[in-house]
């Protein structure tokens, strides 16, 4: 009886693990506002292992990122899978670790076919710099989960466009000089 129960539990675990996951990375139009409790992003970490220092720093902070992004799905590719993906986009070779975010919501009224955004951490030389950008990125994702037009938010906040962006860049530059 006990064995049978154990067998049933194992079978059920196996079944759960073997159930294929449905995934559709296309952005959709929404009519109502953004529901903060629903999934907004599919997040992928692509890392072939070129930049070992940055890679180690990012991977050691992944559990933290996963907790912040608990309403979204995070996928971590193995180095082999990362190579497989980057072979499709050779321009991105050497930019990894890359955090690729597919946005499920299409910005309203946009003619451009925006799909999402990525953070190319492999372009940073030092793990400390990469971690600072990684933190900024997680902060951006968390604070803008309900923004309708993330395309615009990326340009304003992450590209530091506009007057406020200029002040931010100058402040960062002066901090580097001190």
């Amino acid at each position, binding site marked *: 009886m006990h064995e049978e129960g154990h067998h049933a539990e194992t079978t059920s675990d196996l079944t759960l693990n073997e159930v294929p996951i449905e995934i559709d990375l296309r952005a959709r139009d929404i009519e109502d506002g953004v529901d903060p409790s629903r999934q907004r992003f599919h997040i992928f970490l692509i890392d072939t292992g070129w930049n070992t220092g940055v890679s180690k720093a990012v991977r050691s902070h992944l559990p933290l990122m996963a907790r912040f992004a608990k309403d979204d799905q995070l996928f971590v*590719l193995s180095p082999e899978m990362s190579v497989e993906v980057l072979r499709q986009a050779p321009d991105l070779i050497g930019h990894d670790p890359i955090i690729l975010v597919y946005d499920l919501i299409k910005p309203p009224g946009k003619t451009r076919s925006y799909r999402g955004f990525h953070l190319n951490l492999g372009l940073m030389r030092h793990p400390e710099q990469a971690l600072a950008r990684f933190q900024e990125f997680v902060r951006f994702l968390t604070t803008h989960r309900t923004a309708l037009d993330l395309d615009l938010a990326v340009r304003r906040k992450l590209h530091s466009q506009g007057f406020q962006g200029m002040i931010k860049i100058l402040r960062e530059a002066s901090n580097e000089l001190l």
Partner: protein
Amino acid sequence: MNEEPPWMPALLGALAVMYVGYELNRRRTRLRRIFSTFDREESVIAETLEGLVVSGRLKPYFPGQPAGQA
């Protein structure tokens, strides 16, 4: 004789403004390389990623799970 020419402060001011402009532009270009949006051209990547997930080779990551393992 040792007095600086009257146009010197204006020249230095212009150079300073040009340097700030150059530095802003350089840093913004770098930020655009680090954080960038993407569109249809990367749909090939999307297809590969969807394929990895649907085939079961790539599974969602949860805290506590070793990174890079399904």
